[in-house]
């Protein structure tokens, strides 16, 4: 009864495989962007939203499992969430690569402006 050996193993399905390193159990306080990512997922899956939730946790899992193996192994928990949410919402047409890049550029500029203002302010004191 060993037909399973012919089924390719999905890279996330690691139960029973030998681990190269012990599991790192160190906890760290959540960073603001991680808390926001969690909040965004709650918003997207909100069952009370008129018209129903925009996505499901099962779709989140599919998106995470569809990440390239190297990303799956190296990225952090909420990084995987974010990439999956982007992929799923892009798939649904609610998001586009262009819109995302546009928004990211705007936020980067706003951040740089803020940083420059603080520097200037600091020098004046």
């Amino acid at each position, binding site marked *: *009864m*060993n*037909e*399973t050996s012919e*089924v*390719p*193993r*999905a890279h996330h*399905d690691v*139960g*029973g495989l030998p681990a190269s390193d012990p599991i790192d159990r160190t906890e760290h306080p959540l960073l603001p962007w991680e808390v926001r990512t969690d909040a965004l997922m709650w918003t997207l899956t909100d069952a009370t939203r008129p018209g*129903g939730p925009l*996505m*499901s946790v*099962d*779709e989140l*899992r*599919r998106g995470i*499992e569809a990440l390239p193996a190297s990303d799956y192994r190296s990225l952090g928990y909420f990084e995987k969430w974010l990439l999956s949410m982007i992929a*799923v919402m892009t*798939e*649904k047409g609610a998001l586009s690569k262009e819109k995302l890049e546009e928004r990211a550029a705007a936020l980067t500029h706003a951040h740089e402006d803020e940083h420059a203002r603080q520097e200037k302010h600091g020098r004046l004191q």
Partner: protein
Amino acid sequence: MSARFAPGQAVVVATREVAGHVRVPRYVRGKRGVVERICGAFPNPEELALGRRDASVHALYRVRFAQGELWPDYSGPAGDSVDVELYEHWLEGAQ
């Protein structure tokens, strides 16, 4: 929603391959376990993962596997087991 298997009944997990999100770890595929309890009936996560809102509903079971069944070289106590929650469409009756 009627459940095909009852607690105490032996089942074997299907070995088929399904693309996408599947909540059946590879290490239980093709393995024999015993229904520990019926957890209820829930929409199929494989369909939910594709964004379907009309997903079919399946009975969900908690299936108990002997560690020795899952890992041929298991050296712990003979009574050790692991429970995995599996949907009915992944299970077949066994002796």
